[in-house]
């Protein structure tokens, strides 16, 4: 039930109540204000009526009418009260249902939004973690490659200069103890080995 329907029902109830009260009040005071026309018969009749409906009788009627009116008023008031209670109860139930439904809808939307945001955050975190992991793997591979290259370069350089290193070591270790006179035999044997080449170069290439 929409709000405007609720407002319409309430307005109708209020209008009925006002109309009923106005009618009751007019009934009580209407008899006094009525004036018969100028008809003589009417006056005569009034006079006769006054004889019949004297003050005591009128008072009796008035009392009876008042009692009857009060009874009707009481009954209607009771019905109105019941209707009001029922309406209030329905209204409360309706309001409760509507509010609950709205709240549930809003909570559902809110929960959905939170779930979406949470999923987005999780996706973003996962993507970031994947990117970080990839970067870490790439850097690890690069570092390993660099280390391997550097190691290979150092080993290659070490091996390449091994003769110099050994020579330097020998010189530093026993350089002072190597006497040229002790080397003469070694030098002469080397010269003997290269003798032909030396002679050929001196003989043929003398310039």
């Amino acid at each position, binding site marked *: 039930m929409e709000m405007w329907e609720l407002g319409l029902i309430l307005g109708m109830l209020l209008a009925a109540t006002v109309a009923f009260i106005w009618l009751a009040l007019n009934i009580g005071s209407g008899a006094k204000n009525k004036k018969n026309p100028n008809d003589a018969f009417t006056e005569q009749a009034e006079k006769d009526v006054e004889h019949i409906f004297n003050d005591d009788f009128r008072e009796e009627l008035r009392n009876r009418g008042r009692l009857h009116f009060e009874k009707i008023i009481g009954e209607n008031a009771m019905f109105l009260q019941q209707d009001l209670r029922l309406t209030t109860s329905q209204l409360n139930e309706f309001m409760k249902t509507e509010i609950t439904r709205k709240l549930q809808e809003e909570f559902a939307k809110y929960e959905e939004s939170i779930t979406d945001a949470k999923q987005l955050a999780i996706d973003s975190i996962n993507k970031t973690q994947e990117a970080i992991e990839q970067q870490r793997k790439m850097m690890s591979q690069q570092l390993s490659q660099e280390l391997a290259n550097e190691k290979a370069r150092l080993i290659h350089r070490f091996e390449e200069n091994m*003769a110099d290193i050994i*020579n330097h070591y020998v010189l530093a270790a026993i350089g002072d103890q190597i006497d040229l006179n002790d080397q003469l035999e070694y030098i002469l044997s080397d*010269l003997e080995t290269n003798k032909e080449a*030396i002679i050929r170069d001196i003989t043929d*290439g003398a310039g």
Partner: protein
Amino acid sequence: MEQDKSIIVLPTGVTGRMDVGRLVREVDALDQFLEQAAVRKPGTPMQMPKTSKLLDEMLETNKINALVEDDRKRLLNFLITVRAKAPVMHMSFSADPAPLFTQKLVTWLRDNIHPLVLLHVGIQPNIGAGCIVRTTNKQFDLSLKQDFAKQHPLLMAKIHGSVQEVSHE
């Protein structure tokens, strides 16, 4: 006997071109002195120039009489020719060799390579042991450093073997 006179050899004391040049100058000076002495007045006092140990060795080895003009001329011509045309070998050692060492080396060279070869000695401290020989067009690296370089595969094999042994231990 005449043929023996014409053969002149270099004594082992004469090793390099500088020694030959020094002998050339000395023989030339001696020759000039003796030429001047020949035209002096008889009885004029004169003092013979002193000859170096190297020249003495040269004269003695080749049985040359320095007072004889022909011998002097022959010696001078020989020395000039040697200085100009004799083959020169450069040998570098890790240290300055002793004269006796140089003489032994020159003796071997003149016996085995060329009888008139001259030796120029240089120093290269980084070669360790051995020597580097440079002739007219070639260089012979007979140093310990070169030996190590030649034995590089063996050296690496030994090192790798030692490394593997250490790894297994």
